[in-house]
């Protein structure tokens, strides 16, 4: 089921409009402070700025004062949020109620990880937010002040410039409620709200608010309950938000399509693709920061690929020279085949590459195509099984008959 098409009939239609006079960040932080007070949650997981630095770290907090430096949408993605969740709940469920405010790609990665039994989502309220993207990590580190200024602009203009990371610039999944699973045409909009299989309970809408207000959008009864406990009415119309989201979505779809067409040209064929990875030093940073790469020990780090010296020598003799470390393309293509069906295009791989190889862009392109052929959208529907763990007899008939070779 592809959930990338957006149909405003399926989007939640009512929510709470909250004035953001004191700034969006402060407004959101205040809401969560209140939620702790009112005991909607026992603890909040949110990015917090590390004092005296420009770095952000995930903090699970009970102490409200820690929220003072919190920012639900920092200019950069440091640790992928799903990884933070995994370190918390891999070995079991939380007994306390947690609200986790994550970017859409981080939520989707978390849902994928829960399908791989790496995250237990019980007692975790996932709260998503409209995301305009993130700044390239190296740019931010080089000049945080400059990046912060640009990012402020990005939040206001939303997608009108491409100073964000390339995969963010082409991201068409920036507002999760527009991607909630479609149901049949027969059910009425109200029922659809209930029937949506939400990985999120609540969504913070920013689009259409013009920096003056934010939209708190409940996606299911639990979300509505949270708003109730926060003493917020959830019957305001979300028309402006819906309209703006559709508008930006259309734009992004176009941008993505064009970008991918161009990229495809650049990497198609063994020679071009290998050339892309010429500078790769096999540090495997991309794999290590990737939320979907969950293996305790990556196959490509294991001894499976270590051979005897004679083998290396004879391989070298075949071509005259043998490059080390070996198997650069094997690593990338192998990692791709293992994880690309769950790739959420979060781009942390590209941020982590010391050689500035456009890993995220390449993997996202392949992800789009492979996910489409399985009609699979990662991280949208908690119940949808992973394609590689699911056997359907009735699929891929097109590969059953060999094509005629002229």
């Amino acid at each position, binding site marked *: 089921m592809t959930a990338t098409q957006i149909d405003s009939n399926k989007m939640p239609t009512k929510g709470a409009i909250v004035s953001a006079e004191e700034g969006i960040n402060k407004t959101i932080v205040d809401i969560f402070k209140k939620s702790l007070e009112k005991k909607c949650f026992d*603890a909040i997981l949110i990015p917090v700025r590390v004092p005296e630095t420009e770095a952000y770290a995930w903090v699970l*907090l009970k102490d409200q004062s*820690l929220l003072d430096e919190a920012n639900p949408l920092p200019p950069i993605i440091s640790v992928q949020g799903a990884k933070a969740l995994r370190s918390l709940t891999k070995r079991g469920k939380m007994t306390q109620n947690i609200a986790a405010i994550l970017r859409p790609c981080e939520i989707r990665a978390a849902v994928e990880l829960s399908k791989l039994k790496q995250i237990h989502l019980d007692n975790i309220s996932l709260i998503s937010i409209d995301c305009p993207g993130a700044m390239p990590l190296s740019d931010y580190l080089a000049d945080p002040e400059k990046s912060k200024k640009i990012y402020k602009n990005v939040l206001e203009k939303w997608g009108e410039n491409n100073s964000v990371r390339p995969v963010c610039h082409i991201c068409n999944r920036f507002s999760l409620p527009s991607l909630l699973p479609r149901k049949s045409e027969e059910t009425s909009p109200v029922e659809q709200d209930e029937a949506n299989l939400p990985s999120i309970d609540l969504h913070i809408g920013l689009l259409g608010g013009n920096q003056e207000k934010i939209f708190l959008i409940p996606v299911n009864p639990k979300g509505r309950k949270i708003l109730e406990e926060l003493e917020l009415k959830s019957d305001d119309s979300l028309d402006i938000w819906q309209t703006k989201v559709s508008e930006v979505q259309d734009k992004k779809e176009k941008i993505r399509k064009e970008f991918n067409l161009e990229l495809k040209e650049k990497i198609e064929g063994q020679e071009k693709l290998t050339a892309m990875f010429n500078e790769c030093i096999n540090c495997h940073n991309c794999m290590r920061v990737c939320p979907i790469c969950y293996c*305790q020990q990556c196959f490509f780090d294991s001894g499976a690929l270590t051979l005897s010296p004679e083998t290396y*020598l004879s391989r070298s003799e075949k071509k005259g*020279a043998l490059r080390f470390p070996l198997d650069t393309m094997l690593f990338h293509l192998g990692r791709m085949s293992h994880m690309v069906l769950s790739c959420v295009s979060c781009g942390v791989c590209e941020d*982590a590459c010391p050689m500035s190889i456009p890993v995220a862009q390449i993997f996202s392109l392949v992800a789009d195509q492979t996910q489409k052929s399985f009609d699979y959208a990662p991280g949208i529907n908690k119940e949808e099984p992973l394609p590689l763990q699911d056997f359907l007899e009735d699929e891929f008939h097109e590969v059953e008959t060999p094509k005629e070779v002229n």
Partner: protein
Amino acid sequence: MSNVLKIKKGVEQGANELLKFLLESEKVKGIFTLRKMNENGAVSYSLITHPKELQNAVPLFPLMPVNAGKILSGFTLKKAINEPIAAVLRSCELRAFIELIKRTQGSLENFLLISSTCGGVYPLKSLTDGTYKEQVSQYWESAKNAEISSDIRPTCAACEYFIPQQADMTIAIVGKNDLQQECSIFLNTKKGEEFTIGAPGNIVSEDIDTKETAKLREKRQEQKKKLFDELEKNGSGIKALVKTFAACLSCHGCSKACPICYCTLCDFDSKTHEYLPSSHEIELEQKGGIRLPPGTIFFHIGRMIHMVVSCVNCGMCSDVCPVNIPVSTIFSKVGDSLQKLFDYLPGKDIEEPVPFGTYKEEEFTEIGE
């Protein structure tokens, strides 16, 4: 005083001549060295077995994509090579290889080790920001004059062990003002001498330690002190550590790039460091807030304890760090102090055991008092 093979070619060409000689005469079955991958400066270590491919060899290129000691260890992990191979690597890479061999992670057998007095390497990103061409030309000037090249990696600018130990041959670069005309290859061992019988060039006697190398060493020691002192700008103690590692992503890239970190499954990547939710919840209660993933600094200190006694200050850790934390400087500082305590220089002598694996009754008696 050692025997020195003088080849009447510029140092880069001379090095290539040496390699060509070794391969064509079949004294070695293969050459392990840096090779050009494209015209944009990308280089990669390669095992070259056909003389034709030597055309692309750039053994002295001032870039280190990966620590070659780590590669050679992987090469000979299962067993020693059975044919002679010449390997060209830097001082720190060679020292790392020696340290790994002390831990049975490789074998020296059948290697002809060729090194050079090292002028340092440039940051990896000079390949991607296009500055490498300029830098490389600058490199030879600085090396000739025994000066620190301005854009060289901070780690290299602070490295005083640029004269390799345990190499069979050393190509002299630092302080050699006849770099463009002549290539001087110091033959440090009997093996080095045997393998160069019949090589194109003449043998003279020279000392590898010169006034120039001493000059550079002094400059580098100054830089080292400066670099280490800079670390103190964040203060000291836990607060300083938190600040220094504020941006750390716990990607463990530093560990994976480090030649000394050889564990197939690092303890910090294993289940030992995956905690029950209840542990997190208890800590949350106690502290009001916990950073996730946990153990950011714990990992670094743990890794330090495990490997810093053999840290050769190669700087790969800083190179691969996505958030520019000066890991190499931090680890070298601690490594330096620790190694001095044990009077141990990693990679100097293959017979010298790693201090952590040895017991001496008469040491650190001051602690007992």
